[in-house]
């Protein structure tokens, strides 16, 4: 099929950036969205032009490296999918597709569709772990965890850190990302000793990074490729309030 692409081009963080239009022929409906971009880049190279920079690695929805706004939707139109899992059969011959990077204040654009998500790593550096040193672990089955708690922790732990939540949020908030890690560790007995310290450290860092506040819009959950639920946000807010009231350690 034939596509009309409108792609964001920006040479560097300092460049103001602009859209450019490209025509692409012979796109197979069986190819993935990123394979379609590969084809575009081969065409640009043939014309001796700079290809479009975009991040990707696993191309199967698990590493969290890819992330694009497709027609204004984070990861495109199919719920529960990353853009690397999106296939061109969901588009029609002759479609016009607008492709942009994540637009989030705390994710500065590096080049074209590539952004800097280092702020996510820094949020986790403020408590997104269990303080434990290699060698001190007790026998695995000495920590019993009811199945439903383990399952809930796993639901949160599936976050791939792609940033779609923040990109979809009108406030550019990283609340779902942060809540997912707080929820993962907070549901496990191993995570209890640092539970309140963790939530305060991470939430404060999220603010310090320049992410916006959460106003319960819910756009984050609807674009999350792992469909992580809003209830983790409520849970995080409860923990944060309790920590502020001096509940830490209960």
């Amino acid at each position: 099929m034939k596509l009309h692409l409108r792609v964001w081009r920006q040479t560097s963080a300092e460049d103001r950036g602009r859209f450019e239009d490209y025509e692409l022929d012979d796109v197979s409906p069986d190819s993935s969205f990123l394979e379609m971009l590969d084809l575009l880049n081969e065409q640009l190279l043939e014309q001796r032009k700079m290809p479009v920079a975009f991040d990707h690695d696993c191309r199967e929805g698990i590493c969290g490296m890819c992330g694009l706004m497709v027609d204004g939707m984070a990861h495109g139109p199919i719920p529960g999918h990353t853009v690397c899992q999106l296939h061109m059969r969901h588009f029609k011959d002759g479609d016009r597709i607008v492709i942009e990077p994540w637009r989030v204040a705390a994710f500065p654009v590096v080049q074209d569709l590539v952004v800097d998500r280092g702020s996510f790593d820094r949020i986790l550096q403020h408590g997104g772990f269990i303080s434990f040193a290699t060698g001190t672990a007790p026998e695995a089955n000495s920590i019993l965890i009811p199945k439903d708690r383990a399952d809930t922790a796993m639901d949160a732990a599936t976050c791939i850190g792609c940033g779609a939540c923040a990109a979809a949020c009108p406030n550019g908030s990283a609340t779902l990302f942060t809540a997912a890690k707080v929820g993962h560790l907070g549901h496990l007995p191993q995570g209890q000793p640092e539970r309140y310290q963790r939530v305060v450290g991470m939430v404060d860092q999220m603010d310090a990074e320049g992410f916006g506040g959460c106003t319960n819009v819910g756009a984050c959950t609807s674009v999350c490729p792992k469909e992580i639920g809003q209830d983790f946000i409520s849970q995080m807010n409860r923990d944060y309030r309790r920590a502020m009231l001096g509940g830490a350690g209960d």
Partner: protein
Amino acid sequence: MSEHVRLWQEGPELDGRVPPGSIENKWDDLRFSMKLVAPANRRHHHVVVVGSGLAGASVATALGEQGYRVSCFCFQDSPRRAHSVAAQGGINAAKNYRNDGDSIRRLFYDTVKGGDYRSRESNIHRLAQISTEIIDQGVAQGVPFAREYGGYLDNRSFGGVQVSRTFYARGQTGQQLLLGAYQSLTRQIAAGQVEMHVRSEMLDLIVVDGIARGIVVRNLLTGELRAVLGDAVVLATGGYSNVFFLSTNAKGCNVTAIWRAYRRGAVFANPCYTQIHPTCIPPSGSHQSKLTLMSESLRNDGRIWVPRHPGDTRSPDAVPEPDRYYFLEEKYPSFGNLVPRDVASRNAKHVVDEGMGVGPQKNGVYLDFSEAMERLGRATIEQRYGNLFDMYHSITGEDPYAVPMRIYPAVHYTMGGLWVDYQLQSNVPGLFVLGEANFSDHGANRLGASALMQGLADGYFIAPYTIGNYLAGTDRTAVTADAPEVTGTIADVRNRLSALLGIQGRRTALALHRELGHIMWEQCGMARTAESLSTARTRLQELRESFWNDLYVPGDAGSLNQNLEFAGRVADLIELGELLVLDALHREESCGGHFREESQTADGEAKRNDEEFSYVAGWTWQGEGAAPMLRREPLEFEAVRLSERSYS
């Protein structure tokens, strides 16, 4: 033999430095005899770790916790994205939680046999011993492993073994183990013990007086090249399946780090041992950029078949029973669809080559669940394989509940890698190699769920001791940034980048990579012959020339240039391809994932030649255009008896 003399030079034997004593006590004895660095002195030692996958993140963490200064590098934008994240099935550990007869000894035995007796016994025994600690470690980190209703850990049987020893976290075990390691690493980063450098690519190894003393890294965002010096260098840079272009590996997986080390003197062992996984989704066209693995468990209930007559284009439901060829069930009546990975893969290739392939590209075989659905009901199938069916549907656009799946084998894992001794140190002192990047534990074939185990054993529990022993035991003079080896290595890297940019030809790195994959897959894939390998040698040489004469890379080296990064990786993959083919040509036997058609039993099974080939093949770079040197490490089996595999 006379031709062989020209293809490679013979070199001295390699010594794996395996400690003496009974196999059960080797590791304990060695640990006791190793030198220790006093806690107050550790901060004076700087260790450079390349890679943040399971192996790299775990070793950086463990060294940081002990008080060493660590710098860790990865090319992704966060350590959490290393390819380990994609592992699905699980991780083995000899916990014997099921009381089903598992033990360290059995895991050891299964791994030696699974590797088709081409691995070092002592390493595997240590791996089996350590396996149980890894699960303890993961739980303490908060890895949400699957649980039973009583709150205990669940586990399952995986990859055809007879005991249940595989621990898992849904279909995302690699992701959860990596996040566990990443969280611990994050804690060390926050504490200032580990300095993390993302979007940084190691492009060379710095060797001074024969000792590894640092790396040259390129900052992928700014293009800045610099030397990072250290007291030891650890490479944990993963596997090189992408030499086949299409594989189940992430797009970024490459061989550059270990290939550059090879060119600086490190021995490369068994490059030809590659694993091909039978249940992947077949390519859908020339746009295909990678392949997706479907869990092997599907073969428990799916029946594999193709139309009996080549060229039959009827839709699967229109092919009557007598016209269906259930080739595995017919050829291997007792194992049927559950024959091992390599046997299933080769047979699928065979029927496709004979023109019986199915699907629009005629490049797959059916994996049919209709009978299982009738027998067990759709609900059971949904419960067992629902997520896999959804994934298949999303990729192919076909509903596997209604039409049979199509599958085809794909390259999945590389057992070969840099040679290391028992202490995971390469032949270059100060250079340690961990995880999929080394050759150590899987012989000619890796068992399911044992790569995650190996990466974490190497990183958390082996290398932190052996690196300490190295640091305590050697006197190293200080190397400064203006040493000729340092400035010289940076200059080499700079020249190479300029060379790539300077060709200004017409072919793209992607087109050249595709061609590389095509040659490797057709001539050196599931079945190899002296003839196909010779063809591959010639074609790879031509490809290398075409690359260096006709490559086009736009832009410059002074900023983010993804095409330049990629071209450098492809250049190294082509050279590796040549060594891989040479290794395959020299090994005139079949073993594990390496199948030489000349060496098979009457019923078409891989036939080892223990007399002549019971050794590790270690290759040493001898300079541009010179034949490499072959150094052998003889394999001795004391605890396990050599025997033949049989599935008929």
